[in-house]
């Protein structure tokens, strides 16, 4: 009887933990501390896996030419590459060049709008991962004043 009760309690406890942890379990991929912590652009780019990513006309990267407010620079990335699974954004001259990654499940359109901080005038790169391959588009954004101040 005790054993059964214990099993039942364990079951309940597990269910409770599963319930409480649900919003966290929704994060399918762990935030990659080492990758996001890379301060050198070349190292971050390589470590991300985009070293040989070709430039693609099928990625629309929309940025302002001049950032009026470097603390909130609007960026739109749209991928027309079939099977887009992930969109990431880098700023080459930011102290931490990898700014964000978006994981795109089936059914979600591979188009994302976000606002970034830019430390100085820099090339902004959008990377698309599709079918395990990487593609990129880049645009220079001129910064007047600093975004990290």
């Amino acid at each position: 009887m005790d054993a059964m009760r214990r099993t039942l309690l364990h079951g309940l406890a597990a269910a409770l933990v599963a319930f409480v942890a649900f919003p966290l379990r929704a994060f399918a991929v762990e935030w990659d501390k080492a990758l996001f912590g890379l301060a050198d652009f070349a190292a971050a780019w390589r470590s991300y896996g985009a070293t040989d990513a070709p430039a693609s006309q099928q990625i629309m990267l929309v940025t302002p030419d001049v950032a009026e407010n470097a603390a909130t620079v609007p960026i739109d990335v749209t991928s027309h590459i079939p099977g887009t699974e992930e969109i990431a954004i880098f700023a080459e001259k930011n102290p931490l060049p990898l700014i964000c990654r978006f994981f795109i499940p089936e059914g979600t359109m591979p188009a994302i709008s976000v606002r970034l901080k830019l430390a100085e005038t820099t090339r902004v790169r959008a990377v698309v991962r599709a079918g395990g391959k990487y593609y990129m588009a880049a645009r220079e954004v001129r910064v007047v004043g600093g975004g990290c101040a």
Partner: protein
Amino acid sequence: MAEAIKMRAQWRDGVTEIRMLIPHPMETGFRKDAVTGRAIPADFIHTLSVRLNDRVVLEGHFNTAVSMNPVIAFKLKGGKPGDRVTASWMDGKGEQRTDETLVR
């Protein structure tokens, strides 16, 4: 306690557009306090997850250079008015917040 996510989900012609503003300081860790000169510690959202009903429709991983009070917009095929959109974030301090809205 962090402020609620401001979120809108609008359905049109078979496509649901989700827009949100997430109140959060998104401290980079690179700034110094103007008065004391001490470094202000980093404090930023690193993970965002958005669900439509029970299906994950977007997952975002952020670094310090996503703007203060992040503004995110994206679209998905399907959805319908009345569907529930849930957004959850977690920051480096372990703070988290979940808010929801209905597709209109």
